[in-house]
């Protein structure tokens, strides 16, 4: 092992960094994207999609808090699946997380470039997109604290803009049109209620990534649950505010196809300060989201590399900045490739399918974790989530229901994703069966899992730091 590879990730992050990582990635979904629920199911369909997806994400966030604070590893969902499910599921979920975030990064960078071009028409989208991706990669290369502190500032400004606009709308400072609510209540009938569910995840897509900085937290057992729950509540509040403001300020037929719904709602209010604030918020959330995506996708690739699922060359840690710098730099060509593939809409749909696959496997990892390690000692499980494993089963049921709604319009994306992750599952299961390496629970300070005396557990994946 080289000197670089023996360095470890720096442990400096605090709860507000965890909040900034989670909310920073997701808040862009409240500035744009969520409104496709309105096109499918009207205002009532959108409200139901927001609540159903919200319930699923509240449970996923609790599962991620428990798993993240217990394992304290950078790979997040990948590491949980590796430890508690098996190598095939681990590789699939690791790749799913990577694809989910890298596709979002590419989309965010293009939107930033388009906004910049609309302000300065002489700018070209291609070079600005490259510049945004390169700049964010450099910030993440230099250090996680700087990257997430930047995310905190950007996200806070964007969230305050939503808060201010909402309270002004709710307290009558802005002229609203309540009749829009009835006019566009349920344009496609009851089937629209069900169809709208497929875009419900846009309100919260990626919040589980907040737990992926656990290995870099000073006190992961406090920072991960507190930051993640605060982030989840922030998103629930932001989602409800956004839905209300947009639906009383934009006619439903226009809202369903709007590119920047919050900005458009501000424009319809006719108040300059809100137009400026929400325009700035749209821009900043895209930057914050792309920034958080670089952080999370690189950690997922780093974790896959550390365990030899992909080349171990990527698992090097920078001796000075303590960042997984090769994995960080590698996000750049992949994001650029996605951004200019010409199939961005397909890539984003693939990102949603990848996310939903994670939402099946995260609660399943928690169920397995509870079965293998029923102890609630502070070493094994410093944060004990409530109502488990019952709510984990409920989250899996919601995720599968939402996945099934993707058959309306995205059948081929869904089939492609199943084939892709199916191949990954069997390939990596086979590869690691041959290697026959066991988990090293003692290195984590954990007892042997229940049933390990039968030799059934532990032959599935390699251990922490075995590299």
């Amino acid at each position, binding site marked *: 092992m080289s000197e670089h590879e023996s360095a470890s990730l720096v442990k400096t992050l605090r709860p507000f960094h965890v909040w900034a990582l989670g909310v920073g990635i997701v808040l862009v979904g409240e500035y744009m994207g969520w409104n496709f629920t309105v096109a499918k199911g009207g205002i*009532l369909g959108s409200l139901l999609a927001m609540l159903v997806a919200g319930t699923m994400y509240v449970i996923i966030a609790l599962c991620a808090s428990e798993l993240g604070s217990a394992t304290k590893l950078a790979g997040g969902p990948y590491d949980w699946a590796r430890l508690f499910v098996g190598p095939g599921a681990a590789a699939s979920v690791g790749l799913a997380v990577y694809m989910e975030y890298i596709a979002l990064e590419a989309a965010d960078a293009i939107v930033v470039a388009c906004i910049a071009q609309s302000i300065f028409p002489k700018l070209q989208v291609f070079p600005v997109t490259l510049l945004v991706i390169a700049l964010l990669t450099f910030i993440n290369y230099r250090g996680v604290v700087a990257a997430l502190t930047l995310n905190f500032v950007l996200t806070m400004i964007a969230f305050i803009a939503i808060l201010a606009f909402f309270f002004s709308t709710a307290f009558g400072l802005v002229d609203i049109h309540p009749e829009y609510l*009835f006019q566009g209540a349920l344009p496609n009938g009851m089937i629209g209620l069900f169809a709208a569910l497929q875009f419900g995840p846009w309100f919260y897509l990626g919040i589980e990534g907040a737990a992926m900085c656990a290995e870099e937290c000073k006190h992961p*057992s406090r920072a991960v649950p507190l930051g993640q729950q605060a982030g989840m*509540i922030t998103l629930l509040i932001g989602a409800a505010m956004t839905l*209300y403001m947009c639906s009383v300020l934009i006619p439903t037929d226009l809202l369903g196809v709007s590119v920047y719904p919050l900005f458009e709602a501000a424009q319809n209010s006719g108040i300059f300060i809100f137009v400026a604030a929400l325009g700035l918020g749209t821009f900043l959330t895209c930057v914050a989201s792309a920034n958080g995506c670089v952080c999370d996708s690189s950690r997922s690739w780093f974790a896959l590399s550390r365990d030899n699922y992909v080349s171990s060359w990527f698992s090097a840690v920078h001796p000075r900045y303590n960042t997984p710098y090769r994995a960080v730099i590698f996000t750049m060509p992949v994001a650029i490739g996605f951004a200019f593939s010409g199939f961005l809409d397909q890539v984003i749909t693939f990102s949603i399918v990848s996310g939903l696959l994670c939402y099946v496997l995260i609660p399943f990892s928690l169920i397995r974790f509870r079965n293998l390690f029923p102890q609630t000692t502070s070493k094994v499980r410093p*944060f004990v989530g409530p109502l488990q494993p019952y709510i984990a089963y409920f989250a899996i049921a919601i995720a599968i229901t939402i996945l099934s709604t993707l058959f309306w319009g995205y059948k081929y994306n869904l089939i492609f994703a199943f084939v892709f992750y199916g191949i990954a599952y069997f390939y990596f299961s086979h590869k690691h069966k041959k290697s026959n390496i066991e988990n090293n629970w003692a290195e984590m300070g954990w007892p042997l899992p229940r049933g390990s005396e039968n030799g059934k557990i532990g032959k599935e994946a390699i251990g922490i730091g075995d590299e």
Partner: protein
Amino acid sequence: MEMNDQAMESKYHSKLTGDTALVIVMLALLVCVEGFTAYRILSETWEIASGFFYLYIIFIGLIVSIETIGCLKVRESIKNHMFEFKYYD
């Protein structure tokens, strides 16, 4: 030495109160905003939504209750481990 311990204990409890206050304020805002949005939308569309409004009530109830219990558990976890893991040093 004892004075130091007392000062540290007092600091820890004060920081824990800060964490608790933050979560309570956010939960209160969550209940108000979710309730307001659902009420305004359902009241304006009652003619259409009256047949299945219970779906909204069920999911709002689930979100608020699971999140509230989750936050109580987060507080309990911090309180139980704050001295052991030196959270506020």
